[in-house]
Protein backbone atom coordinates (compact mmCIF):
# COMPACT_ATOMS: atom_id res chain seq x y z
CA UNK A 1 0.00 0.00 0.00
CA UNK A 2 1.23 3.52 -0.67
CA UNK A 3 1.65 6.43 1.68
CA UNK A 4 -1.93 7.47 1.18
CA UNK A 5 -2.91 4.18 2.70
CA UNK A 6 -1.03 4.99 5.89
CA UNK A 7 -3.83 7.32 6.82
CA UNK A 8 -6.37 4.69 5.98
CA UNK A 9 -9.94 5.83 6.34
CA UNK A 10 -11.98 3.71 8.68
CA UNK A 11 -14.95 2.08 7.08
CA UNK A 12 -18.11 3.23 8.76
CA UNK A 13 -20.36 0.32 9.66
CA UNK A 14 -23.78 0.20 8.04
CA UNK A 15 -26.22 2.74 9.44
CA UNK A 16 -29.97 3.03 8.96
CA UNK A 17 -29.95 6.42 7.19
CA UNK A 18 -27.52 8.68 5.33
CA UNK A 19 -24.61 9.53 7.58
CA UNK A 20 -23.18 13.03 7.66
CA UNK A 21 -19.63 11.66 7.95
CA UNK A 22 -20.00 9.36 4.98
CA UNK A 23 -19.37 10.80 1.54
CA UNK A 24 -21.14 7.91 -0.13
CA UNK A 25 -23.65 5.57 1.43
CA UNK A 26 -25.51 2.81 -0.38
CA UNK A 27 -28.18 0.73 1.34
CA UNK A 28 -29.69 -2.27 -0.38
CA UNK A 29 -29.11 -0.57 -3.72
CA UNK A 30 -30.77 -2.54 -6.47
CA UNK A 31 -31.00 -1.77 -10.17
CA UNK A 32 -32.92 -3.97 -12.54
CA UNK A 33 -32.79 -3.81 -16.33
CA UNK A 34 -35.80 -5.86 -17.27
CA UNK A 35 -35.38 -9.00 -15.20
CA UNK A 36 -31.60 -8.73 -15.00
CA UNK A 37 -30.18 -7.31 -11.80
CA UNK A 38 -27.25 -5.00 -12.54
CA UNK A 39 -27.06 -4.24 -8.80
CA UNK A 40 -28.43 -6.65 -6.25
CA UNK A 41 -28.74 -5.12 -2.78
CA UNK A 42 -25.45 -3.24 -2.59
CA UNK A 43 -24.45 -1.95 0.85
CA UNK A 44 -21.45 0.33 0.88
CA UNK A 45 -20.09 3.19 2.93
CA UNK A 46 -17.25 5.46 1.92
CA UNK A 47 -15.88 7.75 4.59
CA UNK A 48 -15.24 11.41 3.84
CA UNK A 49 -11.70 12.01 2.64
CA UNK A 50 -11.11 8.42 1.57
CA UNK A 51 -9.51 7.39 -1.68
CA UNK A 52 -11.84 4.54 -2.45
CA UNK A 53 -11.24 1.92 -5.12
CA UNK A 54 -14.29 0.23 -6.56
CA UNK A 55 -13.12 -3.03 -8.07
CA UNK A 56 -14.93 -5.56 -10.13
CA UNK A 57 -14.83 -7.47 -13.40
CA UNK A 58 -16.54 -6.15 -16.51
CA UNK A 59 -20.31 -6.20 -16.07
CA UNK A 60 -20.12 -6.33 -12.27
CA UNK A 61 -22.19 -3.15 -11.89
CA UNK A 62 -19.49 -0.54 -11.25
CA UNK A 63 -20.64 1.89 -13.95
CA UNK A 64 -24.29 1.45 -12.95
CA UNK A 65 -23.39 2.35 -9.37
CA UNK A 66 -21.53 5.46 -10.50
CA UNK A 67 -24.38 6.50 -12.81
CA UNK A 68 -26.79 6.28 -9.88
CA UNK A 69 -24.43 8.28 -7.65
CA UNK A 70 -24.10 10.93 -10.36
CA UNK A 71 -27.89 11.19 -10.70
CA UNK A 72 -27.92 9.81 -14.24
CA UNK A 73 -29.91 6.69 -13.36
CA UNK A 74 -32.44 5.85 -10.68
CA UNK A 75 -32.32 2.90 -8.31
CA UNK A 76 -35.01 0.25 -8.62
CA UNK A 77 -34.87 -0.29 -4.85
CA UNK A 78 -32.72 0.75 -1.91
CA UNK A 79 -31.06 4.10 -1.49
CA UNK A 80 -27.94 5.96 -2.49
CA UNK A 81 -26.73 9.05 -0.66
CA UNK A 82 -23.90 11.42 -1.54
CA UNK A 83 -22.57 14.00 0.91
CA UNK A 84 -25.45 13.16 3.25
CA UNK A 85 -28.25 13.65 0.69
CA UNK A 86 -30.25 11.04 -1.14
CA UNK A 87 -29.34 11.18 -4.82
CA UNK A 88 -33.01 11.40 -5.78
CA UNK A 89 -33.32 14.67 -3.84
CA UNK A 90 -29.87 16.01 -4.67
CA UNK A 91 -30.27 19.32 -6.44
CA UNK A 92 -27.80 21.87 -7.73
CA UNK A 93 -26.36 22.45 -4.26
CA UNK A 94 -25.12 18.84 -4.07
CA UNK A 95 -24.14 18.67 -7.75
CA UNK A 96 -22.00 21.76 -7.28
CA UNK A 97 -19.85 19.77 -4.83
CA UNK A 98 -19.36 16.72 -7.05
CA UNK A 99 -16.99 16.08 -9.91
CA UNK A 100 -17.78 13.28 -12.31
CA UNK A 101 -15.88 11.52 -15.05
CA UNK A 102 -17.75 8.85 -17.03
CA UNK A 103 -15.93 5.86 -18.51
CA UNK A 104 -16.05 7.37 -22.01
CA UNK A 105 -16.39 11.14 -21.63
CA UNK A 106 -18.24 12.94 -24.42
CA UNK A 107 -17.10 16.42 -25.40
CA UNK A 108 -18.15 19.06 -27.88
CA UNK A 109 -15.71 18.34 -30.66
CA UNK A 110 -15.78 21.92 -31.94
CA UNK A 111 -14.43 23.32 -28.65
CA UNK A 112 -10.80 23.51 -27.58
CA UNK A 113 -9.78 22.07 -24.20
CA UNK A 114 -9.60 25.55 -22.67
CA UNK A 115 -13.04 26.43 -24.03
CA UNK A 116 -14.53 23.27 -22.60
CA UNK A 117 -13.03 23.91 -19.17
CA UNK A 118 -14.33 27.49 -19.22
CA UNK A 119 -17.75 26.17 -20.22
CA UNK A 120 -17.68 23.56 -17.42
CA UNK A 121 -16.61 26.20 -14.91
CA UNK A 122 -19.37 28.50 -16.12
CA UNK A 123 -21.93 25.82 -15.30
CA UNK A 124 -20.65 26.00 -11.71
CA UNK A 125 -21.02 29.79 -11.80
CA UNK A 126 -17.35 30.34 -10.94
CA UNK A 127 -16.17 33.93 -10.97
CA UNK A 128 -13.83 35.01 -13.76
CA UNK A 129 -10.62 35.16 -11.72
CA UNK A 130 -11.16 31.73 -10.16
CA UNK A 131 -12.13 30.26 -13.51
CA UNK A 132 -9.05 31.65 -15.25
CA UNK A 133 -6.73 30.32 -12.55
CA UNK A 134 -8.34 26.88 -12.46
CA UNK A 135 -8.45 26.50 -16.22
CA UNK A 136 -4.75 27.31 -16.47
CA UNK A 137 -3.83 24.95 -13.62
CA UNK A 138 -5.98 22.09 -14.88
CA UNK A 139 -4.73 22.41 -18.46
CA UNK A 140 -1.23 22.14 -17.05
CA UNK A 141 -2.19 19.14 -14.94
CA UNK A 142 -3.81 17.44 -17.93
CA UNK A 143 -0.79 18.11 -20.12
CA UNK A 144 -2.96 20.15 -22.47
CA UNK A 145 -1.56 23.63 -21.89
CA UNK A 146 -0.91 25.31 -25.21
CA UNK A 147 -2.92 22.74 -27.17
CA UNK A 148 -5.05 24.77 -29.56
CA UNK A 149 -6.53 21.85 -31.51
CA UNK A 150 -10.23 21.17 -31.25
CA UNK A 151 -11.26 18.32 -28.98
CA UNK A 152 -12.61 16.45 -32.00
CA UNK A 153 -9.00 15.87 -33.05
CA UNK A 154 -7.87 14.62 -29.63
CA UNK A 155 -6.67 11.08 -28.95
CA UNK A 156 -8.59 9.00 -26.43
CA UNK A 157 -5.88 9.59 -23.85
CA UNK A 158 -6.08 13.36 -24.31
CA UNK A 159 -9.85 13.21 -23.91
CA UNK A 160 -9.47 11.13 -20.76
CA UNK A 161 -7.04 13.64 -19.28
CA UNK A 162 -9.37 16.49 -20.18
CA UNK A 163 -12.18 14.47 -18.58
CA UNK A 164 -10.26 14.32 -15.31
CA UNK A 165 -9.54 18.05 -15.54
CA UNK A 166 -13.19 19.00 -16.09
CA UNK A 167 -14.19 16.85 -13.13
CA UNK A 168 -11.91 18.97 -10.94
CA UNK A 169 -12.97 22.40 -12.23
CA UNK A 170 -15.24 23.00 -9.20
CA UNK A 171 -12.70 21.73 -6.62
CA UNK A 172 -15.23 19.04 -5.66
CA UNK A 173 -15.74 17.51 -2.23
CA UNK A 174 -16.57 14.22 -3.91
CA UNK A 175 -14.91 13.02 -7.09
CA UNK A 176 -16.58 10.16 -8.95
CA UNK A 177 -14.32 8.59 -11.55
CA UNK A 178 -15.30 5.70 -13.77
CA UNK A 179 -12.19 3.90 -15.08
CA UNK A 180 -10.13 7.12 -15.09
CA UNK A 181 -6.87 5.52 -16.21
CA UNK A 182 -8.12 2.96 -18.69
CA UNK A 183 -7.22 4.93 -21.82
CA UNK A 184 -3.99 6.44 -20.57
CA UNK A 185 -0.39 5.63 -21.40
CA UNK A 186 1.97 4.89 -18.47
CA UNK A 187 2.98 8.53 -18.01
CA UNK A 188 -0.60 9.75 -18.22
CA UNK A 189 -1.62 7.06 -15.73
CA UNK A 190 1.10 8.12 -13.33
CA UNK A 191 0.05 11.78 -13.58
CA UNK A 192 -3.59 10.97 -12.90
CA UNK A 193 -2.76 8.65 -10.01
CA UNK A 194 -0.41 11.24 -8.51
CA UNK A 195 -3.21 13.78 -8.77
CA UNK A 196 -5.67 11.43 -7.08
CA UNK A 197 -3.18 10.65 -4.30
CA UNK A 198 -2.64 14.39 -3.77
CA UNK A 199 -6.36 14.81 -3.08
CA UNK A 200 -6.25 12.42 -0.12
CA UNK A 201 -7.85 13.86 3.00
CA UNK A 202 -9.33 16.87 1.17
CA UNK A 203 -11.54 15.26 -1.43
CA UNK A 204 -13.29 11.94 -1.29
CA UNK A 205 -12.35 10.02 -4.41
CA UNK A 206 -14.55 7.15 -5.50
CA UNK A 207 -13.07 5.48 -8.52
CA UNK A 208 -13.90 2.33 -10.32
CA UNK A 209 -11.26 0.33 -12.09
CA UNK A 210 -10.12 -3.12 -12.97
CA UNK A 211 -6.45 -2.09 -12.92
CA UNK A 212 -5.41 -3.50 -9.56
CA UNK A 213 -2.00 -1.84 -9.58
CA UNK A 214 -3.73 1.57 -9.62
CA UNK A 215 -5.78 0.62 -6.59
CA UNK A 216 -2.77 -0.64 -4.66
CA UNK A 217 -0.95 2.56 -5.47
CA UNK A 218 -3.45 5.17 -4.33
CA UNK A 219 -6.41 3.68 -2.50
CA UNK A 220 -6.84 3.34 1.22
CA UNK A 221 -10.08 1.39 1.11
CA UNK A 222 -11.58 -0.81 -1.53
CA UNK A 223 -14.72 -2.73 -2.28
CA UNK A 224 -14.99 -5.63 -4.67
CA UNK A 225 -18.20 -5.88 -6.67
CA UNK A 226 -19.23 -9.03 -8.48
CA UNK A 227 -22.52 -9.84 -10.16
CA UNK A 228 -24.07 -6.74 -8.64
CA UNK A 229 -23.07 -7.56 -5.07
CA UNK A 230 -20.31 -6.26 -2.83
CA UNK A 231 -18.29 -9.35 -1.96
CA UNK A 232 -15.71 -7.54 0.16
CA UNK A 233 -15.02 -4.09 1.55
CA UNK A 234 -11.97 -3.29 3.62
CA UNK A 235 -8.60 -1.61 3.65
CA UNK A 236 -6.21 -3.20 1.18
CA UNK A 237 -4.17 -4.77 4.01
CA UNK A 238 -7.32 -6.05 5.66
CA UNK A 239 -8.48 -7.54 2.40
CA UNK A 240 -5.18 -9.33 1.91
CA UNK A 241 -5.24 -10.73 5.41
CA UNK A 242 -8.84 -11.92 5.23
CA UNK A 243 -8.99 -13.14 1.66
CA UNK A 244 -5.40 -14.04 0.84
CA UNK A 245 -6.18 -17.77 0.75
CA UNK A 246 -3.65 -18.35 3.52
CA UNK A 247 -0.34 -16.52 3.79
CA UNK A 248 3.01 -17.36 2.33
CA UNK A 249 6.58 -17.68 3.46
CA UNK A 250 9.69 -17.54 1.33
CA UNK A 251 12.37 -19.95 2.55
CA UNK A 252 15.91 -20.57 1.35
CA UNK A 253 17.98 -23.45 2.76
CA UNK A 254 21.13 -25.21 1.59
CA UNK A 255 19.20 -28.29 0.35
CA UNK A 256 15.69 -27.31 -0.77
CA UNK A 257 14.74 -30.82 -1.89
CA UNK A 258 15.11 -32.19 1.66
CA UNK A 259 13.05 -29.35 3.08
CA UNK A 260 10.24 -30.15 0.64
CA UNK A 261 10.14 -33.67 2.10
CA UNK A 262 10.38 -32.38 5.66
CA UNK A 263 7.42 -29.96 5.41
CA UNK A 264 5.15 -31.92 3.07
CA UNK A 265 3.20 -33.64 5.82
CA UNK A 266 2.92 -30.70 8.23
CA UNK A 267 -0.76 -29.79 8.87
CA UNK A 268 -0.32 -26.00 8.47
CA UNK A 269 1.41 -26.30 5.10
CA UNK A 270 -1.12 -25.99 2.26
CA UNK A 271 1.19 -25.79 -0.73
CA UNK A 272 4.91 -25.97 -1.49
CA UNK A 273 6.29 -24.35 -4.65
CA UNK A 274 9.95 -24.44 -5.61
CA UNK A 275 11.74 -21.89 -7.74
CA UNK A 276 15.48 -22.60 -7.87
CA UNK A 277 16.84 -22.45 -4.33
CA UNK A 278 13.73 -20.69 -3.00
CA UNK A 279 10.69 -22.44 -1.59
CA UNK A 280 7.37 -20.64 -1.34
CA UNK A 281 5.19 -22.16 1.36
CA UNK A 282 1.50 -21.32 1.44
CA UNK A 283 0.43 -21.81 5.03
CA UNK A 284 -2.93 -21.83 6.76
CA UNK A 285 -1.59 -20.44 10.06
CA UNK A 286 1.18 -17.90 9.63
CA UNK A 287 2.14 -17.38 13.31
CA UNK A 288 2.45 -21.15 13.87
CA UNK A 289 4.48 -21.53 10.71
CA UNK A 290 6.84 -18.69 11.65
CA UNK A 291 7.44 -20.27 15.06
CA UNK A 292 7.73 -23.91 13.97
CA UNK A 293 9.57 -23.69 10.65
CA UNK A 294 13.06 -22.86 12.05
CA UNK A 295 12.81 -25.89 14.35
CA UNK A 296 11.77 -28.13 11.45
CA UNK A 297 14.72 -26.87 9.39
CA UNK A 298 17.12 -27.45 12.30
CA UNK A 299 15.72 -30.93 12.96
CA UNK A 300 16.33 -31.81 9.29
CA UNK A 301 19.93 -30.69 9.66
CA UNK A 302 19.53 -27.92 7.08
CA UNK A 303 21.10 -24.49 7.11
CA UNK A 304 18.60 -21.58 7.04
CA UNK A 305 19.59 -18.76 4.67
CA UNK A 306 16.34 -16.81 4.31
CA UNK A 307 12.90 -16.83 5.94
CA UNK A 308 10.44 -14.02 5.27
CA UNK A 309 6.76 -13.43 4.70
CA UNK A 310 5.68 -13.18 1.08
CA UNK A 311 2.82 -10.73 0.67
CA UNK A 312 -0.26 -11.91 -1.12
CA UNK A 313 -1.04 -9.63 -4.07
CA UNK A 314 -4.32 -7.82 -4.50
CA UNK A 315 -4.67 -9.65 -7.79
CA UNK A 316 -4.68 -12.98 -5.98
CA UNK A 317 -7.29 -11.68 -3.55
CA UNK A 318 -9.36 -10.41 -6.45
CA UNK A 319 -9.16 -13.72 -8.28
CA UNK A 320 -10.10 -15.56 -5.11
CA UNK A 321 -13.12 -13.32 -4.56
CA UNK A 322 -14.31 -13.02 -8.12
CA UNK A 323 -12.64 -15.65 -10.24
CA UNK A 324 -14.35 -18.69 -8.79
CA UNK A 325 -17.78 -17.08 -9.10
CA UNK A 326 -17.50 -16.34 -12.80
CA UNK A 327 -19.45 -18.60 -15.14
Amino acid at each position, binding site marked *: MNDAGAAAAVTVPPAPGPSASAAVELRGLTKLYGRKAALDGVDLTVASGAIFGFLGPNGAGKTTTLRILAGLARPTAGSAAVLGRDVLDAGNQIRSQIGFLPDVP*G*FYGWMTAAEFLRFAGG*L*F*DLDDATLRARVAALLELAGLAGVEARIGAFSRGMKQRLGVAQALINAPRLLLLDEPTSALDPIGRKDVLDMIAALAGRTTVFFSTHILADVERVCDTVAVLDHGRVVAQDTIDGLKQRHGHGQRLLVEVDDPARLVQAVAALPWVALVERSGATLRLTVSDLPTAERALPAVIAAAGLGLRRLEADEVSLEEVFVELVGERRP
Partner: protein
Amino acid sequence: MSAFSTFLGKERRETFRTWRLWILPGITLGLALLSPVLTRLTPELLRATANSQPGVVIHVPPPTARDSYVQFMGNLDQLVIIAVIIAGAATIAAERRAGTAVLVLTKPISRAGFVVAKAISQLAVLVCATVLGVAVCIATTVALFGAGSIAPFVAAAALWLAFAAMILLLMVMLSAAMRSQAPAVGAGIGLWIGLLVFTGFPLIRDHSPAGIIAANDAALTGRDVALLWPLVTTAIAGAVFLAAAIWFFRRREL
Protein backbone atom coordinates in the same frame (compact mmCIF):
# COMPACT_ATOMS: atom_id res chain seq x y z
CA MET B 1 -23.16 33.95 -15.31
CA SER B 2 -25.68 31.27 -14.35
CA ALA B 3 -25.52 27.68 -15.52
CA PHE B 4 -28.53 28.30 -17.76
CA SER B 5 -27.02 31.31 -19.52
CA THR B 6 -23.68 29.49 -19.80
CA PHE B 7 -25.40 26.61 -21.53
CA LEU B 8 -27.40 28.98 -23.73
CA GLY B 9 -24.14 30.70 -24.69
CA LYS B 10 -22.70 27.32 -25.66
CA GLU B 11 -25.74 26.71 -27.85
CA ARG B 12 -25.24 30.04 -29.61
CA ARG B 13 -21.56 29.37 -30.29
CA GLU B 14 -22.35 25.83 -31.41
CA THR B 15 -24.80 27.19 -33.98
CA PHE B 16 -22.11 29.29 -35.61
CA ARG B 17 -19.30 26.76 -35.38
CA THR B 18 -20.97 23.54 -36.50
CA TRP B 19 -23.17 22.14 -39.25
CA ARG B 20 -26.20 23.51 -37.43
CA LEU B 21 -25.78 26.84 -39.20
CA TRP B 22 -26.11 25.20 -42.60
CA ILE B 23 -29.24 23.15 -42.03
CA LEU B 24 -32.16 25.51 -41.39
CA PRO B 25 -30.64 28.89 -42.28
CA GLY B 26 -28.72 27.46 -45.22
CA ILE B 27 -31.72 25.69 -46.72
CA THR B 28 -34.07 28.61 -46.08
CA LEU B 29 -31.74 31.19 -47.59
CA GLY B 30 -31.00 28.94 -50.54
CA LEU B 31 -34.70 28.53 -51.25
CA ALA B 32 -35.30 32.24 -50.73
CA LEU B 33 -32.83 32.93 -53.52
CA LEU B 34 -33.87 30.10 -55.80
CA SER B 35 -37.64 30.43 -55.57
CA PRO B 36 -37.90 33.82 -57.34
CA VAL B 37 -35.29 32.80 -59.90
CA LEU B 38 -37.11 29.56 -60.69
CA THR B 39 -40.40 31.41 -60.90
CA ARG B 40 -38.84 33.89 -63.35
CA LEU B 41 -37.33 31.10 -65.46
CA THR B 42 -40.29 28.72 -65.44
CA PRO B 43 -41.99 30.12 -68.59
CA GLU B 44 -38.71 29.96 -70.54
CA LEU B 45 -38.07 26.42 -69.33
CA LEU B 46 -41.56 25.32 -70.33
CA ARG B 47 -41.26 27.02 -73.72
CA ALA B 48 -37.94 25.32 -74.33
CA THR B 49 -39.52 21.97 -73.47
CA ALA B 50 -42.45 22.66 -75.79
CA ASN B 51 -40.14 23.68 -78.66
CA SER B 52 -38.36 20.34 -78.47
CA GLN B 53 -41.69 18.53 -78.99
CA PRO B 54 -43.24 19.40 -82.41
CA GLY B 55 -46.92 20.25 -82.25
CA VAL B 56 -46.92 21.09 -78.55
CA VAL B 57 -47.86 24.64 -77.62
CA ILE B 58 -47.77 25.80 -74.01
CA HIS B 59 -49.25 29.14 -72.98
CA VAL B 60 -47.85 30.38 -69.70
CA PRO B 61 -48.96 33.70 -68.28
CA PRO B 62 -46.11 36.00 -67.31
CA PRO B 63 -44.97 35.25 -63.75
CA THR B 64 -45.65 37.84 -61.05
CA ALA B 65 -44.20 38.74 -57.69
CA ARG B 66 -47.05 36.85 -56.04
CA ASP B 67 -46.07 33.69 -57.95
CA SER B 68 -42.58 34.09 -56.58
CA TYR B 69 -43.89 34.34 -53.01
CA VAL B 70 -46.24 31.39 -53.54
CA GLN B 71 -43.28 29.35 -54.79
CA PHE B 72 -41.23 30.22 -51.69
CA MET B 73 -44.12 29.49 -49.33
CA GLY B 74 -44.59 26.11 -51.00
CA ASN B 75 -40.95 25.33 -50.35
CA LEU B 76 -41.25 26.47 -46.73
CA ASP B 77 -44.32 24.26 -46.30
CA GLN B 78 -42.49 21.17 -47.47
CA LEU B 79 -38.69 21.24 -47.66
CA VAL B 80 -38.07 23.56 -44.75
CA ILE B 81 -40.58 21.78 -42.51
CA ILE B 82 -38.73 18.54 -43.21
CA ALA B 83 -35.48 20.31 -42.30
CA VAL B 84 -37.13 21.55 -39.09
CA ILE B 85 -38.16 17.97 -38.29
CA ILE B 86 -34.67 16.58 -38.89
CA ALA B 87 -32.89 19.36 -36.99
CA GLY B 88 -35.41 19.23 -34.14
CA ALA B 89 -35.03 15.47 -33.77
CA ALA B 90 -31.34 15.97 -33.02
CA THR B 91 -31.95 18.57 -30.32
CA ILE B 92 -31.59 16.27 -27.32
CA ALA B 93 -30.89 12.91 -28.94
CA ALA B 94 -27.57 14.16 -30.34
CA GLU B 95 -26.34 15.35 -26.93
CA ARG B 96 -27.32 12.01 -25.45
CA ARG B 97 -25.66 9.99 -28.20
CA ALA B 98 -22.43 12.00 -28.01
CA GLY B 99 -22.26 11.65 -24.23
CA THR B 100 -22.12 15.41 -23.77
CA ALA B 101 -25.44 15.43 -21.89
CA VAL B 102 -23.80 13.29 -19.19
CA LEU B 103 -20.99 15.77 -18.57
CA VAL B 104 -23.36 18.74 -18.59
CA LEU B 105 -26.13 17.26 -16.43
CA THR B 106 -23.77 16.16 -13.67
CA LYS B 107 -23.13 19.86 -13.14
CA PRO B 108 -25.53 22.36 -11.59
CA ILE B 109 -27.96 22.73 -14.48
CA SER B 110 -31.38 21.14 -14.23
CA ARG B 111 -32.81 18.89 -16.90
CA ALA B 112 -35.62 21.42 -17.39
CA GLY B 113 -33.02 24.15 -17.95
CA PHE B 114 -31.19 21.91 -20.41
CA VAL B 115 -34.35 21.26 -22.46
CA VAL B 116 -35.51 24.88 -22.37
CA ALA B 117 -32.09 26.18 -23.44
CA LYS B 118 -31.99 23.71 -26.32
CA ALA B 119 -35.53 24.70 -27.38
CA ILE B 120 -34.79 28.44 -27.16
CA SER B 121 -31.66 28.07 -29.23
CA GLN B 122 -33.44 26.04 -31.92
CA LEU B 123 -36.34 28.49 -31.97
CA ALA B 124 -33.92 31.40 -32.30
CA VAL B 125 -32.29 29.72 -35.29
CA LEU B 126 -35.72 29.11 -36.84
CA VAL B 127 -36.85 32.72 -36.34
CA CYS B 128 -33.59 34.15 -37.72
CA ALA B 129 -33.65 31.77 -40.68
CA THR B 130 -37.25 32.69 -41.47
CA VAL B 131 -36.71 36.45 -41.13
CA LEU B 132 -33.58 36.31 -43.29
CA GLY B 133 -35.27 34.02 -45.80
CA VAL B 134 -38.28 36.30 -46.11
CA ALA B 135 -36.04 39.36 -46.50
CA VAL B 136 -33.89 37.69 -49.15
CA CYS B 137 -36.96 36.39 -50.99
CA ILE B 138 -38.52 39.87 -51.02
CA ALA B 139 -35.29 41.47 -52.21
CA THR B 140 -34.80 38.91 -54.98
CA THR B 141 -38.45 39.11 -56.02
CA VAL B 142 -38.38 42.91 -56.17
CA ALA B 143 -35.21 42.73 -58.25
CA LEU B 144 -36.73 40.26 -60.71
CA PHE B 145 -40.38 41.29 -60.79
CA GLY B 146 -40.54 44.79 -59.39
CA ALA B 147 -42.38 45.78 -56.24
CA GLY B 148 -45.42 43.61 -55.57
CA SER B 149 -47.72 43.32 -52.62
CA ILE B 150 -45.41 42.35 -49.77
CA ALA B 151 -47.79 42.47 -46.80
CA PRO B 152 -49.74 39.27 -47.62
CA PHE B 153 -46.47 37.41 -48.07
CA VAL B 154 -45.14 38.63 -44.71
CA ALA B 155 -48.42 37.62 -43.04
CA ALA B 156 -48.26 34.16 -44.62
CA ALA B 157 -44.64 33.77 -43.54
CA ALA B 158 -45.54 34.81 -39.98
CA LEU B 159 -48.27 32.16 -39.90
CA TRP B 160 -45.85 29.59 -41.25
CA LEU B 161 -43.34 30.55 -38.56
CA ALA B 162 -45.92 29.91 -35.82
CA PHE B 163 -46.66 26.49 -37.31
CA ALA B 164 -42.96 25.65 -37.77
CA ALA B 165 -42.22 26.67 -34.17
CA MET B 166 -44.90 24.27 -32.97
CA ILE B 167 -43.43 21.50 -35.14
CA LEU B 168 -39.99 22.27 -33.73
CA LEU B 169 -41.28 21.97 -30.15
CA LEU B 170 -42.97 18.72 -31.13
CA MET B 171 -39.59 17.47 -32.32
CA VAL B 172 -37.88 18.60 -29.12
CA MET B 173 -40.42 16.47 -27.26
CA LEU B 174 -39.89 13.47 -29.54
CA SER B 175 -36.13 13.93 -29.25
CA ALA B 176 -36.43 13.76 -25.47
CA ALA B 177 -38.87 10.86 -25.49
CA MET B 178 -37.22 8.57 -28.02
CA ARG B 179 -33.95 6.70 -27.84
CA SER B 180 -32.43 8.16 -30.98
CA GLN B 181 -32.89 10.68 -33.77
CA ALA B 182 -34.16 8.33 -36.49
CA PRO B 183 -37.39 7.19 -34.80
CA ALA B 184 -38.05 10.78 -33.74
CA VAL B 185 -37.79 11.88 -37.38
CA GLY B 186 -40.16 9.09 -38.41
CA ALA B 187 -42.70 9.99 -35.75
CA GLY B 188 -42.39 13.70 -36.57
CA ILE B 189 -43.01 13.18 -40.27
CA GLY B 190 -45.96 10.93 -39.47
CA LEU B 191 -47.56 13.55 -37.23
CA TRP B 192 -46.92 16.31 -39.77
CA ILE B 193 -48.58 14.28 -42.51
CA GLY B 194 -51.47 13.69 -40.09
CA LEU B 195 -51.88 17.45 -39.74
CA LEU B 196 -51.83 17.83 -43.53
CA VAL B 197 -54.62 15.25 -43.77
CA PHE B 198 -56.62 17.22 -41.18
CA THR B 199 -56.71 20.21 -43.56
CA GLY B 200 -59.25 18.20 -45.57
CA PHE B 201 -61.70 18.09 -42.66
CA PRO B 202 -63.04 21.64 -42.11
CA LEU B 203 -64.27 21.09 -38.55
CA ILE B 204 -60.92 19.72 -37.36
CA ARG B 205 -58.93 22.12 -39.56
CA ASP B 206 -60.65 25.23 -38.21
CA HIS B 207 -60.06 24.21 -34.59
CA SER B 208 -56.52 22.85 -34.74
CA PRO B 209 -53.02 23.83 -35.89
CA ALA B 210 -53.92 22.33 -39.28
CA GLY B 211 -55.89 25.54 -39.85
CA ILE B 212 -52.63 27.47 -40.09
CA ILE B 213 -51.50 25.41 -43.06
CA ALA B 214 -54.71 26.36 -44.86
CA ALA B 215 -54.56 29.96 -43.63
CA ASN B 216 -51.12 30.29 -45.08
CA ASP B 217 -52.38 29.95 -48.61
CA ALA B 218 -55.40 32.15 -47.87
CA ALA B 219 -53.19 34.96 -46.60
CA LEU B 220 -51.21 34.97 -49.86
CA THR B 221 -54.31 35.08 -52.01
CA GLY B 222 -56.01 37.69 -49.85
CA ARG B 223 -58.84 35.47 -48.66
CA ASP B 224 -60.15 35.89 -45.13
CA VAL B 225 -60.02 32.87 -42.85
CA ALA B 226 -60.68 32.37 -39.16
CA LEU B 227 -57.32 32.27 -37.40
CA LEU B 228 -58.18 32.46 -33.72
CA TRP B 229 -58.57 28.74 -33.01
CA PRO B 230 -55.68 27.58 -35.15
CA LEU B 231 -53.36 30.13 -33.50
CA VAL B 232 -54.61 29.38 -29.97
CA THR B 233 -54.35 25.61 -30.42
CA THR B 234 -50.89 25.99 -32.01
CA ALA B 235 -49.67 28.02 -29.03
CA ILE B 236 -51.17 25.54 -26.56
CA ALA B 237 -49.72 22.58 -28.45
CA GLY B 238 -46.27 24.20 -28.44
CA ALA B 239 -46.41 24.79 -24.69
CA VAL B 240 -47.65 21.25 -24.07
CA PHE B 241 -44.87 19.79 -26.24
CA LEU B 242 -42.22 21.75 -24.33
CA ALA B 243 -43.64 20.67 -20.95
CA ALA B 244 -43.83 17.08 -22.16
CA ALA B 245 -40.22 17.27 -23.38
CA ILE B 246 -39.13 18.30 -19.88
CA TRP B 247 -41.26 15.53 -18.33
CA PHE B 248 -39.82 12.86 -20.62
CA PHE B 249 -36.24 14.04 -20.20
CA ARG B 250 -36.48 14.17 -16.40
CA ARG B 251 -37.45 10.50 -16.43
CA ARG B 252 -34.85 9.40 -18.92
CA GLU B 253 -31.74 7.67 -17.67
CA LEU B 254 -28.47 8.72 -19.26
